[in-house]
């Protein structure tokens, strides 16, 4: 047992760290919200370095790093306070295309995703189908060389930035098993018949949208995998990249910033104890994450359902840190509003990307056999 990184891993970390120190523009650092331009600017910096899609196959631009290296890389990004890599293209659509796409689809979309030419968003949730994804109703009817799509998606993060959306749509409403009538479609956001409605969240910011499809014509070439087999694609995607959902680097950075920002609160035993407990939980989560990576290395198996705990704990820690920040600040000070709004905004983390209740269901069923 050796919980230290190897000399090679340490060297890799230093390389990432010093590259970030030299290449992360000061004005992109550590913002609560990023504009589309800022996000894409950072994306292109990483793309130019060749680091924007480490997990992709090398042929398409992947780095060939080990799982531990990828963990180190992501942690360093988080800890440096970089803009996020928006996952919908790089970590969601692309892996699907790599696994299920036609050659033409790969050639058409992957380079544009890599280089940040297309901004993607994800059309999964619908008003009636949150946790129960398979109950989705948005319909796609094949008419000649097109699908005609009607329906509505919700919680579509950054749809107002997006050039493309990948969607789960119902292509066969007659099947008994609901999962069997679903297909995976790529839709150009400039298509006629698409309208957006912003959904303002309680922090007063515009992150998510409703997307309405009204007789939207989608070329049949934009079907990924086979018709009515979209659920297979969705499941693949759910399983993909379940590791490293703990946002450990980001939380380490938050923690450090909290201590720096509120030195006087470090003398308040009540607040400090709460902070210490979060710090300990975060230390534990980091090691738990590394243990899971180590298990993958040893067994050669993909991560088990138990990695859902990374999402559960990671989001609880993120929430706790923003709550501590709010508690540390003067409730009467105007500047505290930024911290209050961040606390509000972070409440979504235990809801989105599979609510923590769903994650608990998954562990109960898949890992514990209940």
């Amino acid at each position, binding site marked *: 047992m050796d919980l230290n990184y190897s000399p090679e891993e340490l060297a890799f970390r230093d390389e990432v760290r010093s590259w970030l120190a030299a290449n992360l523009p000061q004005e992109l650092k550590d913002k609560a919200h990023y504009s589309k331009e800022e996000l894409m600017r950072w994306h292109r910096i990483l793309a130019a370095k060749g680091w924007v899609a480490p997990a992709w196959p090398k042929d398409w631009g992947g780095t060939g790093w080990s799982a531990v290296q990828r963990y180190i890389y992501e942690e360093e990004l988080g800890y440096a306070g970089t803009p996020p890599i928006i996952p919908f293209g790089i970590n969601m659509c692309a892996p699907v295309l790599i696994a299920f796409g036609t050659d033409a689809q790969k050639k058409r979309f992957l380079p544009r995703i890599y280089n940040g030419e297309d901004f993607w968003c994800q059309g999964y*949730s619908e008003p*009636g*189908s*949150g*946790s*129960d994804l398979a*109950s989705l109703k948005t319909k796609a009817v094949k008419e000649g060389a097109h699908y005609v799509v009607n329906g509505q998606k*919700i*919680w579509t993060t950054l749809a107002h930035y997006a050039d493309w959306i990948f969607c789960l749509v119902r292509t066969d409403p007659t099947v008994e098993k609901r999962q069997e009538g679903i297909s995976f479609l790529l839709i150009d956001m400039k298509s006629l018949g698409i309208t957006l409605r912003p*959904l*303002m*969240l*309680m922090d*007063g910011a515009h992150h*998510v949208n409703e997307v309405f499809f009204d007789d939207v014509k989608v070329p049949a070439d934009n079907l990924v995998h086979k018709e009515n087999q979209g659920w297979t694609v969705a499941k693949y995607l759910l399983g993909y990249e379940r590791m490293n959902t703990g946002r450990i680097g980001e939380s380490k950075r938050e923690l450090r910033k909290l201590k720096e920002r509120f030195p006087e609160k470090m003398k*308040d035993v*009540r*607040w400090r104890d709460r902070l210490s407990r979060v710090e300990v939980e975060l230390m534990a989560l980091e090691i738990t994450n590394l243990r899971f990576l180590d298990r993958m290395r040893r067994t050669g198996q993909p991560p088990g359902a138990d990695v859902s705990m990374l999402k559960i704990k990671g989001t609880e820690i993120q929430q706790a840190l923003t709550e501590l920040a*709010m*508690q540390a600040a*003067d*409730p*009467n*000070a*105007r500047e505290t*509003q930024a911290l*209050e*709004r961040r*606390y*509000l905004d972070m*409440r*979504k983390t*235990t*809801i*989105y990307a599979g*609510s*923590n*209740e769903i994650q*608990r269901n998954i562990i109960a069923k898949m890992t514990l056999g209940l």
Partner: protein
Amino acid sequence: MNFDYNEEQQLLADSVRRYLQKDYDFEARKKILATPQGWSERVWANFAEMGLTGLPLSPDYGGFGGGAVDLMSVVEAFGEALVVEPYLPSMLAAAAIAKGGTQEQKQAILPAVAQGRMRLAFATGERGVIGAPLAQRIVLARDGRLTLHDKFNVAAYRTVDDLAAGDVAFQGKGEPLGAAGGVLEEVLDLGAALSCAEAVGALKFACDTTLEYLKTRKQFGVPIGAFQALQHRMVDMFISYEQARSMACLACSKVDQAGSAQDRARSVSAAKIRIADAARHVSQEAVQLHGGMGMTEELKVSHTFRRLTALARRFGDVDEHLERFASL
């Protein structure tokens, strides 16, 4: 011993509730917030017509001589409806003047307050004074003293729960209030107790609306309220609310008739502790159980979340009250 409102209190509470249901639903409130000033003169006038602005004042000044329990019946309803007009700070400042002002000060201010012609704010410092943008006078509680100010500049903004607030630059030292000791603590305890009452109204709404959501929102072919894990969490919210309500009753009734200042302060701090914990617990769970919908501005519960978050820290946060509770 009884936990009823008396007949007058009940009539008042009923009329306030009827008014809010009719004229202050979520849509009406949204329209008020969409105005530049973010509060409604008309609503304030209606408060005056219903006698609310004179509620805690003596009949000598056109008031009704009400106590904390009387005010509780009003602000609890305000908490449920998420009223944005800063009624409580105005009443607190009025109570401070009534308790500690000179005859001239009272005559100059209290009748106008009772009639709704004048609004006050109550400050414990220069920053984030709720109600300051609409106040003609501000009572400042600082360094153990109360002073009355009529000259000040306000840099206005809105709090996280949409109240009109502002950073205040006071001009001059103001007029001293309350030579008699203890007035400051009394007023602060009144404010803390009433903030508990307001929170209880908001907690009630959060519980009611979450329960309703659990019964109507379907997933996997059943209402999500059929899932036992959510049932138990809903029960814990409900218990939290009932315990919080009990403490708000205690705090307000002790403010009206405590045996001693210490007895009052201890009950108020205990209430603030329990209610801050309930506010945190219930608001977080209410949003979580609503899923994504709970995060949107379109559902009232997200606004209730904001109000509860703010209320948990007004008039002292849970840590300050734990400290005071243990010292008494």
